[in-house]
């Protein structure tokens, strides 16, 4: 699946993204399972809140980490999240 740069993204309602104090990391929780996230993945997924698209996620992260040229990595991560059903595209009503 290819991702359009301007489609708003949100976490799938079947999952919950949460900080786990005991593990000192973010996790994605779903029926009877859990995915442990690294910091980068968590930073990207936290921005999938229904108000950001690929372009604005990249902008925000480039500001936050004072980085540039991260678009391909972010795109790759988001596309795989989309294919895994972790996030979904918000369809305009």
């Amino acid at each position, binding site marked *: 699946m290819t991702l359009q740069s301007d489609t708003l993204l949100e976490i799938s309602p079947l999952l919950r993204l949460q900080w786990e104090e005991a593990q000192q990391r973010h996790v994605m929780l779903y*029926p009877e399972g859990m995915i442990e996230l690294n910091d980068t993945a968590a930073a990207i997924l936290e921005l999938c809140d229904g108000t950001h698209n690929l372009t604005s996620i990249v902008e925000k992260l480039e500001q936050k980490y004072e980085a540039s040229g991260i678009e391909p990595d972010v795109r790759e991560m988001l596309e795989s999240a989309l294919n895994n059903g972790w996030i979904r595209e918000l369809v305009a009503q």
Partner: protein
Amino acid sequence: MAGSENSSLSKPRWLLAELTYSCPLQCPYCSNPLDYAGLGNELSTEEWKRVLSEARALGAVQLGLSGGEPLTRRDLAEIVAHARQLGYYTNLITSGYGLDEARIAELKTAGLDHIQVSIQSPEKLLNDKLAGTESFEHKLDVARWVKQHGYPMVLCVVIHRQNIHQMQQILEMAEALGADYLELANTQYYGWALLNRDQLLPTREQFAEAEAIAQSYKEKVKGRMKIYYVVPDYYEDRPKACMNGWGTTFLTIAPDGMALPCHAARELPGLACPNVRDSSVREIWYESAAFNRFRGYGWMKEPCRSCPEKEKDFGGCRCQAYLITGDMTDADPVCSKSPHHHRVTEAIASAHDSTADKPLVFRNSKNSKALTG
């Protein structure tokens, strides 16, 4: 007190709270202990809340609410609300029997994350026979309501010789109900299932056929419905990595407060499982003899001790080893390297030869008392 000796031990991630042994159904494959009817009083609401808080503080994050039938606890919504507020992901594991829309909504408000409904068979007659209760239409309604109320819907079907020929219909039913996940749980032989093994264990050919059907259906529903397949360990060469290793990940609390490191650990001789009425969850997890008994590899005998695969399967299930060989320190006899492996092949042969008229023993209090005095 948490000493430094504890720092190398992993934390419980999964808490399975068996809230009650009451159940309106009578499934002959139930994994509850045979003597459940004679076990002690159920934990109170306040005791459960304390257990949930203590386990969460240790790092537990997935919470399974099961039983028995957890819906028979009138305080279920209160327990769910407490769990949600602590940050658990709460899974209700239910037969659906006794669930109506008002209660589904009430649980949603309390913060329940997910409901897993189990159906015995896609065919009314067989469903009702196996459940020992007329429940088929009601379960279908429950599955639809679960979906309508915005929960991820997990349908669970326990697979055995009485329904394995219905694999195609099971898959079609799950798809028609809009299940997000379908769990095809091949029966694990503990408790009542072990008692009824001759009537429940399918043949190798039946397994192969059913698995092929499920595999090809996986492709068809890709992206819409995830299919989990719990493998039939009797037909494997290697045992399951039971509980992901003893005392590493899973903590089960039985209705009477007994803390179990594995399904049937209550029955293991001399293990003396601790009770949350006597100790804190922290003491149980880190310090109890029972939870430490099979941690690591030091307890192993041959062939496991020198086996290069021991870090993969941890020697299999301690309860299954005990139930089949009589020695809980043996390799799980499912393993083809086990000197007791022939007992598993004999069990398969015995199921194969068993006459159809040997009756199933249903899981109910009358049978529980009759069997265990």
